[in-house]
């Protein structure tokens, strides 16, 4: 019975939002605005709460087990400190919250991201080999792109830049288009299957 009610709610809201999206009627448009401005935000806030509770529960149980205890404590302290700073001093201008964001979070995230350059360099030496014809094609495309995206005008022949632009504008774009169209059609069919109740895995098992 519970599954049936969930399915009916899913169908009703799926069909309603689908109709509202395409309708130009003033009532439909104002209802659409209300759904987007109010209801989506409420749903988002609740999902955020679910995420935070889950994060705290998982970390607490792992701390109890002694699994990566220092890191998990730091995570929980971070989770608690940022809202406290935001509630007391706000999140704007030169608030402590913004200081923590700019001088702790931003450098840490940028550092982790920058480490990728080192791993790419290492992987290019150890793993990027022309073992087969397709691998050789991939390798050539990578070399062309890397060279053309450097500021080496006057050093690198013009035809390399032109070849890299051709790779980006033809085979790369064709593949990307195919993927995008595939994703679009897949999303459309999955959405229809969910709305019409054909796809029911999101409801969980019968147990």
């Amino acid at each position, binding site marked *: 019975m519970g599954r049936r009610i969930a399915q009916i709610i899913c169908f009703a809201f799926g069909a309603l939002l689908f109709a509202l999206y395409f309708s130009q009627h003033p009532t439909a448009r104002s209802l659409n605005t209300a759904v987007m401005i109010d209801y989506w935000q409420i749903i988002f806030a609740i999902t955020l709460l679910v995420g935070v509770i889950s994060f705290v529960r998982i970390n607490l149980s792992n701390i109890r087990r002694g699994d990566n205890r220092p890191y998990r404590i730091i995570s929980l302290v971070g989770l608690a400190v940022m809202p406290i700073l935001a509630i007391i001093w706000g999140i704007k201008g030169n608030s402590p919250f913004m200081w923590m964001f700019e001088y702790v979070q931003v450098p840490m995230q*940028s550092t982790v*991201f920058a480490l990728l350059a080192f791993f790419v360099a290492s992987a290019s030496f150890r793993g990027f080999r022309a073992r087969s014809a397709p691998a050789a094609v991939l390798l050539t495309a990578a070399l062309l792109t890397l060279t053309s*995206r450097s500021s*080496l005008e006057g050093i690198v022949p013009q035809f390399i830049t032109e070849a890299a632009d051709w790779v980006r504008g033809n085979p790369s774009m064709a593949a990307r288009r195919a993927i995008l169209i595939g994703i679009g059609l897949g999303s459309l069919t999955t959405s229809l299957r969910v709305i019409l109740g054909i796809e029911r895995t999101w409801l969980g098992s019968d147990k």
Partner: protein
Amino acid sequence: MKRLNSRHWIFSGLFAIVVITMAANVNLDMRVSPETERMFNYIDSLPTGATVIVSFDHEASSLPEIRPIALALLRHTFSRDLNLIGIALLAEGTGIGYRLMTQTADEYDKTYGIDYVYLGFKPQYIAAILSMGESIPDTYPEDYLGYAYRDHEMLQNIKNYNDIAGVISIADGSLTTHWIEYGASRYNVKVSAAVTAAMMTTYDPYLASGQLHAMFGGLRGAAEYEKLIGIGGSGKRSMLAQSVAHIYVVLLIIVGNIIYFRGRRKDGGSS
């Protein structure tokens, strides 16, 4: 002490060449790509006083690449006396966007509320894009600083996308896609993008089809844009580091393959 293996040497080599090149401060010239020129011409073609939404749709991790891109773009828009509305559809872009906007506004003596406004973050980006198409003041009743939307002189006649010349999404991910799918397709707002280099090929089909009006990106795009506006910035300098790193990786690939093929010949082609 444990012996260094090839990976450690590669890491050290990359670190050394980037530091040396940055210290040497070599001046490299570069050709401006047609796509960067197109973005520049688009901004240049907008009439004085036109209102543009700049959306900071990125996270903190990509700031070293996003900052020069955003600064070059904002400098150009402010120098053209365009009115800017700043928003952020990812929480992490909110504070960054505000800082970048106020920094460049100060450079051009622009006044908050008259020349630019920062509306800040709105969760649920698809809902935010769609609801701004219906009503921007309903979506953002207050700006980032807590002032009422209606109190700003610049926003008096801005109700929805019909009153906006275009949207520029500064992104490090796929959020620009949502601007195209919902903003451009549904409300016909002109969407352009300034993105990280890794995302450029993702948007190539949209640019080719005209769904995306203009796009530039990456450190190279930032350096090219700095060249076009005639203001030096961190894009050109960072591009230097990126260029030597690219050459280094190209050399590593070549050396790695030479070693591989020599080893294969020695083994009689068995490996």
